[in-house]
């Protein structure tokens, strides 16, 4: 390995209006390493990587790559220099095939697409080599999120790269898919590639990295070798204080039933039965978790409860009144909060401001509106209050929410839903994209809600999240509920078996 760094970022600055996203950041990446990037939401990780791959131009500073200073006008320039990035939000055209996506923008604009066979062969060969299981003729929109991600990674490999940047690739993956991705990263490094990996999950970072850099407020504050640190220390470097992994809990027994679900069944958007006769209750002052490998009906369950998907059979009763089959607006009006899985689809309206997003469900109610007119001052104050309490990193309440980093958008959604003081809160993926400092805070807030008598249903694929705050955990498999467990970490094996669809009790050890 050469002594000079493979990629050197020197004192880069980037501002968006008054917001400083990169404040003189410097970083060195060595050839053939997996270098992880950690940092709180809005620390500037995505922006920094966008500058390396030509999406965003730095205001000041140098990027030296393979010993040469470079300046990319577009991602295509970066790809020519063999730098490729897989973005937090995929860059795939949904109605085209995988192969068509790969040749998009290649060759002269006037050329006739002729040698598709050759492209297909090349994709198949690469797919086999890295065991990615990508079919070149599949239409992208028919693929699951995990598959689309493999398509994205293979796209970068297809274009031939030496440096691969992955921005929060595991946020949307199941644990199995995550394992697979981490293995792939190691394989790529064995093939002589270099990988930069962004993640909020410390265990993943500890598992695959050679070195880890921590960003704070637009700067790299620490770079450490993986052998010389541990998760606890990393957390402290990120947040600047100790992060508690265990939260204290109030042992108060739960109150009366708030939400009752009886024999609920519904179909996915494609018409296939997804939830098959599910029954459970959620009481005031308890958090009920639903664990499961994603794709076992959790998405449809949460959509059906919130009125976004028609119910086939069964009943949903909230506070003694049936809400089955009501439309989302009617359910919203019944003291029912929803933190959705896909915030861009069901949680926020990207081009609208933070203020407008915080009153999405209540724009016509007092005190936000009187006599059909919006009260700008009240709305702004309310939004500023939420921003402050949940530490949403933003310029002001009038900024479009699209300009916020992913984790900060999520924080605002959580803040909004809790501020409505609902009796029941439906949460699907509470901490998706949120950094560990904010995660602790958000989970504490959920516990506070529980202690003040709210009923909470927490659907999650993150077992840590479930163990940390749930009172009991239901396991969903194949659209049904297979069993119930207390949040006892020692029974992790049992939980794993249930999640895999295995109903028998594990044989007693010894």
């Amino acid at each position: 390995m050469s002594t000079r760094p493979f990629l050197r970022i020197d004192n880069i600055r980037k501002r968006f209006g008054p917001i400083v996203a990169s404040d003189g950041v410097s970083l060195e990446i060595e050839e053939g390493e997996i270098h992880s990037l950690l940092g709180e939401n809005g620390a500037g990780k995505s922006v920094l990587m966008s500058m390396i791959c030509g999406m965003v131009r730095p205001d000041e500073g140098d990027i030296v790559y393979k010993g040469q200073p470079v300046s990319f006008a577009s991602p295509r320039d970066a790809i020519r220099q063999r730098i490729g990035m897989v973005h937090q939000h995929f860059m795939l055209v949904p109605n085209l095939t995988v192969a068509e996506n790969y040749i998009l923008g290649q060759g002269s604009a006037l050329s006739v697409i002729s040698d598709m066979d050759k492209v297909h062969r090349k994709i198949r060969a690469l797919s086999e080599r890295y065991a990615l299981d990508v079919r070149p003729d599949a239409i992208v929109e028919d693929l699951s999120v995990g598959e689309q991600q493999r398509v994205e990674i293979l796209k970068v490999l297809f274009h031939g790269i030496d440096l691969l940047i992955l921005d929060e690739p595991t946020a949307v993956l199941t644990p199995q898919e995550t394992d697979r991705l981490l293995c792939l990263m190691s394989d790529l490094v064995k093939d002589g590639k270099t990988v930069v990996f962004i993640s909020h999950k410390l265990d993943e970072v500890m598992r695959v990295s050679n070195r880890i850099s921590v960003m704070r407020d637009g700067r790299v504050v620490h770079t450490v070798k993986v052998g010389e640190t541990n998760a606890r220390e990393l957390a402290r470097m990120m947040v600047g204080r100790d992060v508690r992994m265990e939260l204290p809990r109030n042992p108060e027994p739960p109150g009366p039933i708030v939400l009752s679900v009886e024999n609920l069944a519904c179909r996915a958007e494609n018409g296939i039965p997804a939830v098959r006769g599910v029954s459970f209750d959620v009481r005031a002052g308890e958090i009920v978790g639903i664990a499961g490998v994603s794709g076992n009906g959790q998405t449809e369950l949460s959509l059906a409860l919130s009125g976004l998907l028609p119910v086939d059979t069964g009943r949903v009763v909230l506070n003694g009144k049936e809400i089955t089959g009501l439309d989302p607006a009617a359910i919203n009006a019944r003291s029912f909060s929803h933190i959705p899985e896909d915030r861009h689809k069901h949680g926020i309206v990207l081009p609208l401001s933070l203020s407008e997003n915080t009153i999405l469900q209540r724009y016509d109610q007092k005190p936000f509106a009187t006599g059909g007119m919006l009260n700008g001052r009240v709305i702004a104050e309310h939004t500023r209050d939420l921003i402050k309490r949940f530490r949403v990193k933003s310029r002001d309440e009038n900024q479009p929410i699209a300009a916020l980093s992913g984790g900060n958008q999520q924080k605002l959604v959580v803040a909004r839903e809790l501020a409505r003081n609902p009796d029941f809160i439906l949460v699907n993926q509470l901490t998706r994209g949120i950094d560990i400092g904010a995660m602790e805070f958000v989970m504490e807030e959920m516990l506070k809600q529980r202690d003040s008598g709210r009923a909470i249903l927490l659907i999650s694929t993150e077992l840590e999240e479930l163990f940390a705050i749930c009172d009991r955990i239901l396991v969903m498999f194949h659209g049904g509920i297979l069993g119930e467990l207390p949040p006892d970490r020692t029974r992790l094996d049992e939980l794993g078996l249930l999640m895999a669809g295995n109903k028998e009790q594990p044989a007693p050890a010894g």
Partner: protein
Amino acid sequence: MDDMMLLTFLATLVGAAWRLATPLIFASIGEVFSERAGVLNIGLEGTMLVGAFCGFAAASATGNIPLGLLAGVAGGMLFGLVFAFFTITIKADQIVVGAALNLLGMGLTAFLFRTYYVSTGKGIDIAQPVHIPWLSDLPFLGEAFFRQNLIVYSTILAAILATLVLYRTSFGLTLRAVGEHPKAVDVAGRSVPGYRYAAVLVGTGFAGLGGAFLTLGHSNQFVEGMTSGRGFIALAVVVFARWSPIGAFFVSLLFGLFYALQLMLQAQASIVVPYQVLQALPYIMTIITLVVFRGKGAAPSKLGQPYEMR
């Protein structure tokens, strides 16, 4: 009606349908390009009028029909350039600009026509049906399919060519991607505004050609507002055709059939429906189509939205 008469009626109907569908075919194929790239150009009506007028003006000056058609295309594209500048460069609302261009097209052509041509009252020699040996003389089939002028025949070529460009070239692939996920195109290193300009110009060029057919291949005169809603019907055709050029061809034929039917029924003394009702037929069918096929399933997902680079 006896069988012979019915057959003759049908043959004439089909022949007329294709002729009457021709402007729709051109305009809707063009609009498919534009919408696939995410640009909804409701200014088709005005653009077609400009094409009709330019075609007429050029042909009456030179007596040359191909030159007239070319002028129609050029006029349409010039108009499209204005639309593209406001919607793509300035990022103004596409509907508002389109509506403004419709008004401009109607006003401008009426003004120019009245100023320079109305007093002359002179028509032009329009494109004549080509006689294809043997085929044109077939009973019934000849009347239905083989007594058209070259412009009408060229609609088949246009549909095939458009399909090849859209699905078999790098340009077409990128164009389709621009309407679905412009950022992906940007990241792939192609200019989104560039492709949108190109799509609008192709679209308005075709609309201009469709308009020019009205003056050069159909009636021999320019008449104010002579497109009478064809530009809007073309918009409906695109939806019904699910944004496919071949689909646009056949759906346009269907609408052509309504036009032809309405004309021929008016001529039948035995039918007592008021002629206004018959005249409304194509428009009623448009509304019905739009209601029945309202599903947005196949619509480009960024249709009507300007693209913001960051």
